């Protein structure tokens, strides 16, 4: 009704699942620059090229990174919009509860002023 997510059908489970790994979160961070390919990204981690490639594939399937061809190279680039969606969901839920707690506090304060209630 109010919350509109203008992104073509995001798969939230997949997205959150992909972010549930420290290496993948780190890959997402590095790929914001969008200048490195899988091999270059792999050099930052004490793991095999294949292992990093696998992580990148999981992120790509979740829509969190895309592979883009630049000349003869293929670089991995973070899809910022995808990440924002994941974050926004929790932010909105936080707002819901903040509103509730604000109303609770008002009720408690009101009650103090009317001790005979």
């Amino acid at each position, binding site marked *: *009704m*109010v*919350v509109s*997510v203008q992104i073509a059908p995001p798969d*939230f*489970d997949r*997205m*959150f699942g992909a*972010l*549930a790994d*420290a290496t993948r*979160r*780190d890959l*997402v*961070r590095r790929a*914001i620059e969008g200048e490195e390919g899988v091999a270059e990204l792999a050099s930052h981690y004490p793991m095999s090229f294949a292992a990093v490639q696998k992580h990148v594939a999981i992120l790509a399937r979740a829509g969190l990174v895309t592979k883009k061809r630049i000349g003869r190279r293929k670089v991995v680039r973070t899809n*910022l919009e995808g*990440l*924002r969606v*994941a*974050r*926004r*969901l*929790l*932010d*909105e*839920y*936080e*707002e*819901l*509860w*903040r*509103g*509730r*707690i*604000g*109303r*609770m*506090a008002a*009720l*408690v*304060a009101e*009650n*103090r002023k009317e001790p005979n209630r």
Partner: protein
Amino acid sequence: MTVTAVRKDPEGLTMTLDAEFDASPERVWQLWADPRQLERWWGPPTYPATVTAHDLRPGGRVEYHMTGPEGDQPHGYWEVLEVDAPRRLVFRDGFADADGRPNSDMPINDVRVAISDIGAGRTRMSIESIFPDAAAMEQLLAMGMEQGLTEAAGQIDAILAEDGVPTTTAR
């Protein structure tokens, strides 16, 4: 500030929010245990809640509906799981059809409330909300439970800064 800490864990699909009140645990408990008080804070001002059943015992149910500006009335219920007045309340919050029957097509989430005395006449209330899956969370939010939601900043730095450790943000 009433809300003292928020921890959001996108991977665990959990949000925990701590709040402190200038009141006793018993007073804070009343906010949940008295249906007339509950309906004054559960729904946002544009969607006030009406509580039609309130059996706050394990296995009991709380039933409510909210009335929107267009006269629309989304119905909801709690399935009460644990009650330890005035300290602990655990319930499953779900949507229902107009007759109060749980609508299994709609999302549910579990809410754990912990209330504790922190001295000097103050009480801490911790709300832990757990979603069964991301789709349920997305669906619940899309239901328009909260009107006039602020457009969240969606700061990329925030999500990246988390790095797996649930962060504490105080606004």
